[in-house]
């Protein structure tokens, strides 16, 4: 087990190395003269402490732009390994500082959505599987398909249109109401929570369909298994068959998938956050991407690549832990 984990970790590091290399090549080939433009802009900002030439030399040296791609990549890598991610161009803050400022909003948003997603999707999926080919089953199938097929931006716009424009219940975007500063601490909390409602609903609806289908399929498989037939033949009450025998076995794939998606809670919802102007990491990274803020983008992409690899690893390890029949090697 330990050996397997170590091996996987090493593989992950190797993959990460190449993933970041590809991303670095992409960044390196950013439109010609971008660094120059950026240096000029930074130098002409009010209160700029460095001149254009200094900025240019600084930026080129910082990102190894004055060397070849491969050498430049190693320069970047050596900085990154030591935790020196540089200063964000778009936010004029150290990258790690901007990360700290934003990631927790994303985490809260994702966590709330994740909890609701589980609470809604799993019971619905199980109900659909219990009554296969019934109206409920078809209904859930269609609903989950609609949820999967909904583009985030359309759903977000639709929700805004209905709840903000037509009903006026929520603000169109942003994280704080107009009189946020005059509210008590609890009032501030409620205000922010209110602004998180529509983004969470968007995320929940988008992600609910997949989990629902997954639950239903796995539950159906379990229900067709021999041990369920045995339990029923024994005369075990149907309730107990479902809740005790079937549900526990359905949990195996569910726990592994959900466990695997735990690191993803930190990665932020890029489009949802941007559309609702939630200052999470997704929003920050989107703004950085459109402004070619290389330090922040490199950091963010490294971060989510790590999260993806970590998710896969956790999911595989959990599989071995939860299901004693599986032996990892």
């Amino acid at each position, binding site marked *: 087990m330990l050996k397997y984990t170590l091996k996987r970790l090493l593989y992950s590091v190797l993959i990460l190395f190449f*993933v970041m290399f590809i991303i670095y090549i992409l960044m390196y080939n950013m439109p010609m003269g*971008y660094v120059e433009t950026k240096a000029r802009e930074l130098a002409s900002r009010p209160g700029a402490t460095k001149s254009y030439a200094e900025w240019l030399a600084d930026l080129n040296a910082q990102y190894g732009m004055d060397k070849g791609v491969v050498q430049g990549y190693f320069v970047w890598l050596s900085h990154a390994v030591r935790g020196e991610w540089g200063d964000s161009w778009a936010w004029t803050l150290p990258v790690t500082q901007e990360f700290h400022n934003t990631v927790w909003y994303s985490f809260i948003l994702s966590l709330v959505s994740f909890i609701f997603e589980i609470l809604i999707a799993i019971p619905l999926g199980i109900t659909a599987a219990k009554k296969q080919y019934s109206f409920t089953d078809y209904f859930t199938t269609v609903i989950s398909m609609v949820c999967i097929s909904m583009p985030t931006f*359309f759903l977000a716009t639709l929700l805004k*249109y209905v709840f903000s*424009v037509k009903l006026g219940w929520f603000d169109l975007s942003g994280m704080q109401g107009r009189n946020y500063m005059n509210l008590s601490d609890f009032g501030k909390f409620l205000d922010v929570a209110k602004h998180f409602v529509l983004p969470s609903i968007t995320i929940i609806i988008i992600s609910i369909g997949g989990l629902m289908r997954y639950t239903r399929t796995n539950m159906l498989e379990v229900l067709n298994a021999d041990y369920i037939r045995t339990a029923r033949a024994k005369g075990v009450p149907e309730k107990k068959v479902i809740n005790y025998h079937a549900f526990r076995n359905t949990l195996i794939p569910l726990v592994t998938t959900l466990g695997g998606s735990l690191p993803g809670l930190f990665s932020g919802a890029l489009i949802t956050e941007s559309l609702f102007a939630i200052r999470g990491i997704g929003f920050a990274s989107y703004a950085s991407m459109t402004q070619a803020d290389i330090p922040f*983008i490199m950091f963010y992409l490294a971060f989510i690549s790590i999260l993806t690899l970590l998710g896969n690893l956790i999911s595989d390890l959990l599989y071995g832990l939860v299901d004693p029949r599986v032996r990892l090697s």
Partner: protein
Amino acid sequence: MADKYYLNAALKARAAKAVDRKTDGEIALDDISRVKVLSPGRQVFKRFIRNRLAVFGSMLLIFMFVFSFIGPLFYSYGQKQIFYKFDRQTVNYAMAKDNTAYNGYDIDPDAAVERTVNNAMNSRIKSMIADGDTLRFEMGKDNAYEIEKLRDDIYRVSIADLTPICTYGSSTVNIGTYSQVRKTIEFRGEEVEGLADAMTAAVKKNAGGGSFTYGGVTYSYKKGQAKTYAVSASFDGLRYIGEPMDESFEAALEAAAEKGESFVCDGAEYILVANGAAWDVYRRNAARPARVFSRLTVDTFESGAPVSNELRVNALLAAGGSGRFTADGQQWTVAEEDGFLIVRGADGAEYMELTPFSVRRYTGEDSMEYSLKKAVAEKVEEMIEAGAKSGSMACLLPMQGESGEYVYDENGVLQYQEAELVISQRETGEFVITAEQTIYVIDRFSAPSSRHILGTDGDGFDVLARIMYGGRVSLMVGFVVVFLEIFLGVIMGGLAGYYGGWVDMLIMRLVDIFYCLPSLPIMIILGAMMDALRMNTYVRLLIMMAALGIMGWAGVARLVRGQILSLREQEFMVATEATGIKVKGRIFHHLVPNVMPQLIVTATMGMGSVIITESTLSFLGLGVKHPLATWGTMINSVSSASAMAHYAYIWIPVGLLICLTVIAFNFVGDGLRDAYDPKAKR
């Protein structure tokens, strides 16, 4: 094996023979012809059409394809066709202003007025008006100019011919520089003999500066730089520059200098020009007229007749003079009538009017009727008297038809209609007259109507046409990207699965890397990069498709490899090896067809997700760009808060189309999977 062996056909043929053998033609209960054997394809098809959702999805897809690819052929509007309409809008119809700026017109093109003098003329004339002067001299660099008031609002600038006579009054003139080292004076003008010695003596007495008298003139000196002194001579009284004049002149000058006016003596006119505390006196000879400045503009009434520069200039000059003039080979008269300066031709008919007040069409493109101009002028006068900043009047304006053209009756007479003119004064003083007019504008955001079933968007494009063409792009992107994914995935997965070993290892690590690449951020970065390079929208489309395909093949490769690994162990593969079929044939004729069902399902489902990605990118403005329509761009164009609220009829249908298409692909994919393998785990 030349022919393929069809079980169904063979059985049918055998049954037919059996029927032939029986004379009564009855078929026994266990007769083979009662059993219908379906080919695998038909079996899949039958299972597929039993699935209602899948059939619904297929219908939707067929509709989408017909709508997007065939629809535009029968729809008369194009995706880049801009629509216009005639709309009644309140426009700035006319402008009335009291002209305050003096414009200059050449009398004699050869007599050029210096630019600095010419540019300063407006303010000179205004200061003359303020001082109540009728004549003023302006000393330019090359020439002297005289500005003469001919009458109110008309001024003539001439190049003066002045003879300097004398200076009068007390004046101090810098005559030169004294050098203490060389003990000489460098004179600017006329030398004064012996002055240097007097100067040396004075400096010895008082080195800092002072004054001394020499030859009846008082000199003063002031220390300058490097042992030099600036020497000035103070004159008092009369000092001739040229020939001295007689006593009568001096008496007249004395009298005139007190008042500071010019005077006449012996039939010659002398002028005084202030120079410090003294006067420079010049004799004024005949000047050469150069330009006429006036704030009057020419108004030729309803005739709109042309006015040449000669006519205008001569009219202005004559207005301040005799009132008669010749221009363009004709005789004219100009006279003030009821406060208006009217120019009449030789036949006595009114030709034009000179007026400081002008009323004209705002754009200057069209003419305005004289009666209307007059009415507006009267109204504005009334407003000025009342001190009102705004007012309105009813009047007759040329009638406009539905398409903005003027309406004429059967005799070709222009028709009029009552209109409300609103006059308001701007901060800058001019009056702007607004009226409702029918004008030709881009038909933006028109609501659904019979002409535009889904209305038009913010650029005047027909929404339905854009939806059709947008669907084309979206579906095409889906197809191309999925094809690319499958192509790459099958090759890589096939190689990895078939060969195993280090090939497998290498390819699978590559798959891991591509699996891990965050595709949406990369697409966004690519989009931003292409934005920065201002790339052509068609090139962008191609790059986007290629990038999506390259980033999506890893999943397909994994699937193909897994399938091939399990198929490789099966007996039919052993058979292919035993019969000596080539590797290429084994992979592409025997393995790949067996992976086909999964591939088709993946491809169908993949289409949906590619369409979502493409529309998301286009929505963010990073995918396909403006003139080319896609569903994402269409929603993006109305995604601002106000547009979203007002133009729901644009983005809701488009969004629903995206959803429906993706749902349809998913339903069909699901249905296909169930049909291929009913027992398969979803």
